[in-house]
């Protein structure tokens, strides 16, 4: 009987670490820049959320498009949601996939890894490999990454009138902190 109990207690502690298996974003920021010949546009959202499962290194991150703020005018933000990203139809930009490198999340340190998966923006899915830097700390994982998104890849059409004001390639940088999911 005692043995069974010990076994179960072991299982219970395993459960603890199992539950630590999933990390969730406690603080997530996305910032993008459109650097076109005639205009520089920047916007940011602090509502990037997501989950990382350590055991199989799978993850999902996403940001609601309507939470982007900044821009050069209120009209620009309206056009961003109405005409370009169509945020009512496609409310989120999502990146879901797996980390390629088999890193040990129990060893604190800085790792350069690649996330491979499907990047969905404006309802169009693209297979992407995105490089990022992971800093593993005590019960905390920091991730930051810079990458670009081609408007053409996601069927975001820019009328010729404003082609000098919106870049074809958008620079995105993300900064996030993960903590064990409660």
């Amino acid at each position, binding site marked *: 009987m005692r043995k*069974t109990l010990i076994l*179960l207690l072991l299982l219970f502690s*395993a459960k603890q670490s*199992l539950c630590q298996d999933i990390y969730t974003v406690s603080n997530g920021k996305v910032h993008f820049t459109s650097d076109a010949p005639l205009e520089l546009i920047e916007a940011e959202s602090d509502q990037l959320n997501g*989950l990382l499962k350590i055991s199989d290194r*799978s993850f999902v991150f*996403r940001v609601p498009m309507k939470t982007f703020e900044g821009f050069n005018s209120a009209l620009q933000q309206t056009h961003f949601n109405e005409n370009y990203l169509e945020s009512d*139809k496609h409310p989120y930009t999502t990146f879901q996939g797996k980390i390629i490198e088999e890193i040990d999340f129990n060893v604190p340190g800085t790792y350069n890894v690649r996330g491979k998966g499907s990047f969905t923006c404006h309802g169009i899915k693209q297979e992407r490999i995105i490089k990022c830097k992971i800093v593993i700390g005590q019960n905390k994982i920091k991730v930051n990454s810079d990458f670009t998104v081609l408007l053409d890849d996601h069927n975001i059409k820019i009328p010729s009138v404003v082609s000098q004001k919106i870049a074809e390639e958008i620079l995105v940088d993300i900064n996030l902190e993960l903590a064990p999911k409660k």
Partner: protein
Amino acid sequence: MKRIIFTIILLVESCLLVNSQDLLSMLDSIQNTEDQIFYTDATFKSIRLINGYTSETAAKNELVFSISHRFGNVNQGIYDFFGLDQSTIRFGFEYGLTDRIDVGVGRSNFEKIYDGFIKVKITRQSTGKRNFPVTITLLEGMSVKTIDFAYDDVDYPFSARLYYVHELFISRKFNEKLSLQLSPVIVHRNMVETQDDQNTVGAIGVGGRYKITNRFTCVGEYYYLLPGNTADNFNNSLALGVEIETGGHVFQIHVTNSTGMTEKAFIPETTGQWRKGDIGIGFNIIRLFSLK
């Protein structure tokens, strides 16, 4: 003892269950947009529907410049080039004090009218934590007719030149394409042409837009005069048109049986009749400047 074992098994089980869940659906449960308020944006492309306004206001520090033309009636034929030889114009500015309050001024060559107004978004259509079906905007305006009176031997007081308008715009964006607006309005005129005319005229406006593409929209607007002498002697204003958006510009091209572009002029004083062809071509060009 058995109970303890049972509890532990249950705990382990529940944990394993969580782990087998799909990450995305797990994210759905933590990232719910229910606790946020999303205000409906861009119910209309601009502050003006056709002759009248929309529930939209200029955003904070935004200056909206609009220049409007109404040509003569198309039934005048080729001699007047289908009305294009005559034109009535109004130009105006609207400036956002906050995201919900703006003020505007305008000048029209129709009876040499100056107009000024304030628009206040009382409530906004929203989803999420706070769900509200409509946007309601109040317009309080005043205009001054500065054209010389026909009889200069009579000394009219200045107040005889004043007109007031009180209007509510109740709009709803049903989906990304369709938005409709109901606008009850009262126009008060201190002095009217004849004794039979009402000084205070009520009307109900209905209007809407349907987006064909992201930048091309069909619009319509109708003001129904509430029964009375004015309704008997004048016509309801009807305007139909299209809207083209290019960056910071909105071009509106339409046909209407009204000539004036201030509430005082197109709501109680429309004389043109659609079925007789008393309709004119008109356009509004609306340009937005950000003064941030």
